[in-house]
């Protein structure tokens, strides 16, 4: 773990605020381009303030390092991806398994942010970036024209001057707020993730989840949040399991239900409890997630300033796809490249930094967000959250419950019955099916 270092007086070509995945990636590209760059981190080490669900999709790391998988701090390589729909006493799982996901070049991995983030920040420092930990960027420095020319820190008020600041300061980004790019608070576009990490012996995890040789499982769950828009998750690490819920903060606050009660519900569910039996809580944590999608992504550049990662609301929460770290890395790399080009060209104005957005549009970061821009609204809608989990479970239950001597009814009849029992009109079911086809098609 790096010891806190004191910022030097003087200036850098760029100051990157936040040494999470976005900031480390931005600092890496700036350093690789030969630029002097300071990477500020308010925690004692990168990742110390971060909590995520649990899976990093590493394809974007191919841009960072060839054969990164040979050295990345991994817990398990995900070979099972399950989607579970549940009610209090029912559950239906779609369980996909792929052994090639457990071989190079891999797909998704579980890892701890306290290990992954320092590893990635280490790539930036290896390339020449200067990591400064235990230091808060408390505000932006501006010249008389309003252009951002550095940051103020809480190290005796020390100032760092530069041509461009890259704000990778996370979901609460006070720098993006100060610059007027993000609203002060937008509860409707944020979810709260609450997670418990539970210790279990490695071989017990292997047996219960049907994996081995460093393989892991990823379970995404709908219907476990008492109708509060959101979902649950369960990820296997080497000798722990991460289990938690993600819920709309606005609806959580209005519900009167405490977040840890939702985790307790999930852990006690008959489909989940046997997987966790005997586990001991190793750590509890929580973090906000910007889940508003494409329509809530702010302006990404101002004069002397770029925004990347969660600070730019770039987490993808599109139902089947729940990705954030890869979007942070992708946006950070692009921000670092754009900043390096602008510094080299001597123009760090907003137009001089515009190649950042164009770069993001040409690749997954903004393309995926644009494609699934309707997804947050659909996934968090009242019927998807409050009625469809029970409708689906009731339908499957009626399909597989043998009612001899009564003959089996047809599938359409069972669907009509399940819909009616859960207060869904067929017209609504058809409309939502069409909407889903449009959203994800």
């Amino acid at each position: 773990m790096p010891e806190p270092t004191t910022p030097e007086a003087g200036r850098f070509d760029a100051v990157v605020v936040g040494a999470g995945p976005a900031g480390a990636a931005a600092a890496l590209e700036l350093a690789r381009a030969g630029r002097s760059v300071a990477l500020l981190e308010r925690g004692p080490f990168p990742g110390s303030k971060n909590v995520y669900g649990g899976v990093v999709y590493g394809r974007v790391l191919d841009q960072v390092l060839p054969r990164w998988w040979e050295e990345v701090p991994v817990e398990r390589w995900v070979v099972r991806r399950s989607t579970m729909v549940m009610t209090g006493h029912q559950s239906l799982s779609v369980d996909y398994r792929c052994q090639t996901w457990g071989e190079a070049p891999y797909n998704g991995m579980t890892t701890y942010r306290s290990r992954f983030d320092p590893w990635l920040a280490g790539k930036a420092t290896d390339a020449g970036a200067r990591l400064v930990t235990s230091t808060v960027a408390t505000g932006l420095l501006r010249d008389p024209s309003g252009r951002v020319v550095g940051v103020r820190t809480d190290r005796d008020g020390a100032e760092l001057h530069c041509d461009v600041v890259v704000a990778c300061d996370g979901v609460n980004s006070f720098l993006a707020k100060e610059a007027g790019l993000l609203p002060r608070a937008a509860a409707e576009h944020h979810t709260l993730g609450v997670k418990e990490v539970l210790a279990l012996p490695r071989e017990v995890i292997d047996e219960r989840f049907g994996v081995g040789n460093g393989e892991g499982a990823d379970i995404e769950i709908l219907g476990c949040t008492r109708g509060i828009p959101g979902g649950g998750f369960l990820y296997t690490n080497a000798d722990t399991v991460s289990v938690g819920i993600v819920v709309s903060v606005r609806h959580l606050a209005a519900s009167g239900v405490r977040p840890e009660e939702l985790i307790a519900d999930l852990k006690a569910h008959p489909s989940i409890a046997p997987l966790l039996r005997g586990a001991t809580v190793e750590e509890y944590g929580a973090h906000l997630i910007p889940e508003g999608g494409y329509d809530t992504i702010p302006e990404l550049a101002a004069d002397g300033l770029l925004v990347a990662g969660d600070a730019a609301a770039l987490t993808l929460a599109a139902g089947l796809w729940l990705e954030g770290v890869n979007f942070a890395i992708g946006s950070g790399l692009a921000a670092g490249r754009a900043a390096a080009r602008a510094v080299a060209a001597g123009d760090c104005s907003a137009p001089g930094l515009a190649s950042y957005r164009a770069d993001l549009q040409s690749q997954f970061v903004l393309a995926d967000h644009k494609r699934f821009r309707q997804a947050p609204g659909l996934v968090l809608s009242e019927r998807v959250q409050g009625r469809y989990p029970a409708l689906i479970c009731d339908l499957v239950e009626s399909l597989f419950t043998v009612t001899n001597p009564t003959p089996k009814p047809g599938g359409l009849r069972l669907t009509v019955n399940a819909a009616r029992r859960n207060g869904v009109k067929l017209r609504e079911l058809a409309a939502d099916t069409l909407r889903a086809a449009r959203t994800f098609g």
Partner: protein
Amino acid sequence: MSTESTDTAGTGTGPRRPSDERWTGISFATRMATVDFRVGRRAHITVDADVCRGCTTRACVTACPADLFAPTSDGGILFNYEECFECGTCYMVCNHEGAISWTYPDGGQGVVFRRG
């Protein structure tokens, strides 16, 4: 880091399991004891009790994942900054401008997640 596992004084309201599965409902204090905090002297979050006295929603009391907001008998809110996750939920859900003043703790202080 504490690895205490069982405590019968569970705060969860999920279905209670037989006694050999008490781990499903650990106490909130046990839960919070698993987290490493480097407590600074400065309170990084302050609550204006006068504003809070007029609040009927008390969204922060429900939503704070660290359960740090406690209603007081005079209608105000008591806030403990020491075990804060620094998540931002409280100011996001607060509908009274100026009730919650929110900053990050000083550099190097506050929560340190090991398994985040």
